[in-house]
């Protein structure tokens, strides 16, 4: 628990802290542990960490308050939220509130490592690269007007088409936090994707699996036929040709209220900050 540790783990369960420490130490990462939220906040305020792994349900403060404090301290710090009470609401709220990842408990070593790796890589990105850059996609749109994107944090996006269908893809930041995209596993057509739950699996160059959380729920109409062969499309044109699915949204009007709109009102600002404030759920 020396100064200058890479990762801060905040969890009120000792066994979770120990397990994470075990995995991280084996990987040569240094970690700092906080067994309650207040202690975690104090540590965040005193030190800079490369990554914070934070539980959601804790006494005193909940994980979202810790996340808020951490982002106040450093708007671009990578935070991964984890919880034993894994719900769609927690997943969406975590990602939309500015967490870089969401990891439901219980997790395997692989799942933990892939999350940590993405988080650490995110911290290494230049501040500009930590924000989505879909400016060209928005600008290049149909004469009818700009395309309206809805973002699930820095993970996935959806935009609607005139026919009422929706197109789902991966946010460029997510791809940048991976060590290259070596492979992709998509769901077959006719399957359902659900907001806040995994809808695709990307394999990175290191062989780690990264799960992409779906931005909205719906039935898959079409899977991008080119992706299986040309995984590179994902990185080349994440907001265009690199789409994943065309879906029939199930509850678009509600689910999109939970997401960030891009562009927001008014003229588009290509590199403006994405509003970190989530819609407050009551």
């Amino acid at each position, binding site marked *: 628990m020396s100064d200058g540790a890479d990762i801060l783990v905040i969890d009120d369960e000792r*066994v979770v802290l120990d397990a994470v420490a075990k995995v991280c130490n084996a990987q040569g990462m240094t970690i700092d542990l906080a067994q309650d939220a207040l202690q975690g906040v104090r540590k965040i305020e005193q030190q800079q960490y490369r990554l914070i792994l934070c539980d959601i*349900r804790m006494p005193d403060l909940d994980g979202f308050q810790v996340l808020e404090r951490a982002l106040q301290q450093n708007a671009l710090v990578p935070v991964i939220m984890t919880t*034993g009470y*894994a719900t769609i609401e927690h997943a969406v709220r975590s990602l939309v509130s500015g967490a870089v990842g969401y990891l439901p*408990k*219980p997790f395997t*070593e*692989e799942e933990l490592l892939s999350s940590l790796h993405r988080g650490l890589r995110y911290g290494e990105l230049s501040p500009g690269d930590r924000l989505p850059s879909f400016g060209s996609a928005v600008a290049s749109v149909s004469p009818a007007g700009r395309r309206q994107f809805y973002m699930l944090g820095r993970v996935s996006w959806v935009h609607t088409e005139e026919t009422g269908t929706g197109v789902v893809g991966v946010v460029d930041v997510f791809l940048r936090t991976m060590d290259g995209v070596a492979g992709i596993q998509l769901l077959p057509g006719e399957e359902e994707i659900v907001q806040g739950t995994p809808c695709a699996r990307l394999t990175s160059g290191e062989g780690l699996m990264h799960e992409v959380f779906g931005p909205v729920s719906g039935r898959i109409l079409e899977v991008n036929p080119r992706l299986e062969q040309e995984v590179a499309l994902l990185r080349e044109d994440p907001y265009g040709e690199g789409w994943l699915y065309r879906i029939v949204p199930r509850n678009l009007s509600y689910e999109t209220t939970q997401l960030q709109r891009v562009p927001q009102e008014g003229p588009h600002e290509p590199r403006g900050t994405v509003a970190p404030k989530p819609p407050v759920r009551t």
Partner: protein
Amino acid sequence: MGTNRDKLHRKLGVKLIAIVGLTAIAIIGVYSYFSIRAQSTSLLAEVERHANQLSETVRKSTRYGMMLNQREYVHEIINDVGTDPAIEEVRVLNKEGKIIYSSNAENIGRMVDKKAESCFACHAADRPLQRLPVAERARIFQVGADFPRMLGIVTPIYNEPACWEAQCHAHPERQAVLGVLDITTSLALVDDEIQRSELQHGLFALIAVVAISIIIGFFVRRWVDAPVNALLAATEAVGTGNLSYRIEAGSEDEIGRLARSFNTMTQKLSEARLQLFQSDKMASLGRLAAGVAHELNNPLTGVLTYSSFLLNRAKQNPELHGDLEVIVRETTRSREIVKSLLDFARQSVPRMTRTNLNEIIERSVGVMDKQLTVRGIRVTRALDENLPLVKADANQMEQVFINLLVNAADAIGERGGVIAVRSKAITLQPYGVVPIKRAFCRKGHDLMANDVKIDGLPSIRVKARAEGREGYVALDPVFGGGRHHYDLDVKPETTASYFCPRCEVSLLDNESKCVRCSAPICVLNVPPHGMIQLCTRRGCSWQHWEAMEAAGGRQYVEVRVDDTGAGIAPEELDKIFEPFYTTKGQKGTGLGLAVIWGIIDNHDGTIKVESVVGKGTVFTIRLSADQEG
């Protein structure tokens, strides 16, 4: 319990029999009295007429003898006539009252006083009357208590030319009446007749009353006693909590209708209780499941992380590797089980949007179609094209329909069958359903009381005065609901005056009365829906809400899912919505229907199941299609 029932029996049956018996006695008594009187009058008249006739016959048959003054001959006739057993005495009196002929020989020559009863009719006045009608010439008398009654009839013997012209002793011409013929007959036979008749009437009355009592008793037992006892037994059964108790309601009369409405009431009660019970249980189970899942996930994290960590480092040790694989695999399975628990617990916040249920049904059927076709199951749809939109969470509703389809398919099994999905718009009356959310007195004071809740809704508080006492009444905020709370010590059926608790303005409506019981009514302003009127008599549930009633019933969307599967046994029907209740053995978690129930409950809807073993099961879902609430 038994004595109560006996008492009631006595009360109803015996009261009725007593009343009808007394009425019968009175009617038969009056009838008998007049009947006997008429009979005896007519009998006496007959006897009189008969005696008169006899008397005339005697007079006429002795006339010739008298003319010729053949006394022996007259005597013979009178004696012969007097031998008739019914005739007591035949006598002839002369003007002076002397008995000159008599069938009773010893009386001949005796004088009879003119004041005697046989003479009284004519000789009462100073100057004797010469002519009298038959009835007045007759007299009824009794010599002593032991003797039969007698009827005497006096026939005057008038003077005629032959008499005063006769040479014998010649009666003077100016004499009008020469003497009288007096015949006395016994009334013993007539009296016997009357007595027999009285006896007969008495006997008839007795038999009639007994027969009426038996008949009434029989029918009271059959039409009143037995059904009332059945009702009593039912109320007692319901009182002890058995809400599935049903009365066999055979008849079409009021008691039959009462029994049927009692059955409806207990059925509604049991449904409401089940709904409430479920809702309560679901809420606590939801909390429990969430808590358990959360608590379980942390230790599972330890197990899964450590075991997967070890697994990744035991590749060179195949035996260890294999064992660790089992641990990781089983822990991952535990993770899925906990996840399904969380899914169950997570139904608390539906994401409501205005939704067309038909689309969701189509989508759900679409998802299941292939799988069902393979199993030889046909899905028919009868969807109402004009189905109103409902506020619902599309995901959750789809989960509901898919779950119902899966259940239906499992119930049908491998034999193949039909699942029928129907949707339609229905209208239910607002009475007993719509809550009153705001109520004011005529001066605009808010009457809603949050501290007294009735069935979870804030009640309407009014000040009440009755029988010189003052208190508060918390009115049931459901339109048509009668579960008022009385903070005022009055008996049922008492009428109270209602006032605004703040400004004391009277809430009574002086212009109209309760249409059911004519008690005064109270009127409350319920913006924006006008006014609501309600009866102030405790126990009367009459209410009238012009705006609501004019708007008619409220719209609901009803979806039915019918299958031709194995059906569910009645004793299992109550349990199927309980979490972890499963008929599928290892195949199911037992959470499916519990989840459905929770979802529908969160949508303020209702779900109902009916089933016949061997025929199939019907699930009926109802969601409100109204804009508000």
